[in-house]
């Protein structure tokens, strides 16, 4: 009879400490959705989500064991692994299958192609990923790097300085820059974006796992990825509900802006020709190899980590579960 149906496996719930890449904003919604809609709980996971402080810091925070799992930048991971070969961190899913890194400028500045950046002033924070990868981009496009003047400034100043004309262009995540410019009342058609991925085979953020945790709880990692993929799929279907869930964490957010930010972020997560072929979380290793190559030369890394050192796609759910 139905009462003989086996009870769900009585595995104890596993606790997972998870860190985001940045503050609670639209693009971070899928993880919160997975939490609040109970996707994690259904997998027997009890997850705590913390805000992040930059997609690079997530790498060292997961490596140090401060968090078990994190959402962080692949390129930073490559650099980190190159410098700390023993570091216990690995990427188990690539979420940003394209890189959000870009140069953003205004039509008023007269810059229409990347080549026009020569002789101009570019603003960015010291550690900005787009600034650091810029040499590789410049190489690919054929910009003479020596002719670029960098102006270092805090993130909070970046778009303001661009809007006021203190700098001619800025580097950063395209959706952050564009939305901040919009909030400064710059009209959308005045904004020019040069995305690095037009010339460079780069990926962006992915799911990072602490390897000690991975060894101890391989099943939990699998379940975690399963729930996260569900989260992304759900958000794509129900963006408004996702933003409502996000607002529970931070009621001061502007709903419309965050919705737009989310949708812009999804452009590099749910990409025609990639995601509908490989599903969420997976990128062709040959592209990753090229990414590693580009980063190693742009950062001047003395040691190039191997593919196996940085990624492991074996914990992803089966393809059919991952297709959008």
């Amino acid at each position, binding site marked *: 009879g139905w009462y003989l149906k086996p009870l769900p496996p009585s595995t104890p719930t596993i606790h997972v400490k998870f860190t985001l890449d940045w503050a*609670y*904003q639209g693009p971070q919604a899928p993880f919160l959705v997975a939490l609040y809609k109970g996707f994690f709980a259904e997998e027997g996971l009890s997850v705590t989500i913390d805000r992040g402080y930059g997609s690079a810091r997530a790498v060292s925070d997961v490596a140090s064991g401060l968090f078990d799992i994190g959402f962080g930048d692949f390129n930073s991971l490559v650099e980190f692994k190159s410098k700390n070969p023993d570091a216990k961190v690995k990427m188990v899913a690539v979420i940003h299958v394209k890189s959000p890194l870009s140069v953003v400028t205004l039509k008023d500045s007269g810059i229409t192609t990347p080549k026009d950046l020569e002789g101009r002033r570019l603003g960015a924070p010291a550690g900005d990923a787009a600034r650091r990868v810029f040499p590789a981009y410049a190489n690919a496009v054929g910009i003479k790097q020596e002719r670029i003047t960098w102006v270092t400034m805090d993130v909070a100043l970046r778009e303001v300085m661009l809007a006021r004309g203190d700098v001619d262009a800025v580097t950063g995540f395209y959706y952050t820059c564009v939305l901040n410019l919009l909030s400064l009342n710059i009209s959308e058609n005045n904004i020019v974006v040069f995305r690095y991925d037009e010339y460079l085979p780069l990926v962006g953020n992915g799911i990072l796992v602490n390897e000690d945790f991975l060894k101890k709880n391989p099943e939990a990692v699998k379940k975690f990825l399963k729930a996260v993929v569900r989260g992304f799929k759900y958000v794509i279907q129900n963006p408004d509900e996702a933003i409502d869930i996000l607002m529970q964490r931070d009621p001061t957010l502007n709903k419309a802006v965050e919705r737009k930010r989310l949708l812009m972020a999804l452009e590099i997560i749910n990409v025609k020709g990639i995601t509908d072929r490989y599903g969420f979380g997976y990128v062709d290793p040959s592209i990753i190899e090229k990414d590693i190559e580009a980063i190693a030369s742009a950062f001047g890394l003395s040691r190039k980590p191997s593919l196996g050192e940085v990624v492991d796609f074996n914990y992803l759910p089966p393809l059919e579960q991952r297709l959008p």
Partner: protein
Amino acid sequence: MASGKKFKVINPLLTLLLLGIAWELVIRVSNIPNYVLPPPSAILAAFGSYPWYLTYNLAETLTSALIGLAIAAAFSLTLSIPLAYSEAVRESVYPLITGFNAIPRAALVPLLALWFGLGAAPRVLTAFLIAFFPILVPTLTAMITMEKELWEMLQSFGASKGQILIKVAVPRAMPYFLSSLHMGLTSAFVGSVIAEMVASDRGLGYVILSSTSRLDTPLAFACLILLALTTFLISKVLSLVERRVVGWAYRVNI
């Protein structure tokens, strides 16, 4: 008398009001955009939109700042005694403390988070680390500038160095200790906020960071002003305590 007291409370509020009006006018007249400096009206609107959220986060910051301050005050007072006690200890420890204090605490918060986890501990610790030095310095100075005559008086009937410190140097330093709490208070707040900016998802520090990253300057300013107002009020309370406890030191009515 009574009107004098009222005056003391009203006066700074009046100054504040006048400042606010001037600020609003300057911005309206010169058309400064919000992101350069938001007008008080926009800041007030930000207050109005999220009263509970701001209150909740203020409470978070307040708690860790006050705990940090309390620890800093206790620690400074306790540490100042051995430092005053022995010149050798002072000469070897004090410059190290000074050196340590030149390290921007913001740079240490991630380490603190690594060592103590992400809870309240790093916030309280940062508040403590920033607040203790400005309390220690004037307290210690007051202790070691004790008049030689008083020192001899206590020695004459057999008081030990430690007893002289406890019975004379410490009470003599009290006016400086208490007045330095104003400084410690502001530092503790700064410490909590910095820690919240670097490793927390609550508290005014978090709100400031997330609002500035969205270029929501009025909300960030609302937080800053909330911080300033809270400190102002606590500082007033401290002043009352000061006059009660060490009134003897304020006999000149300047």
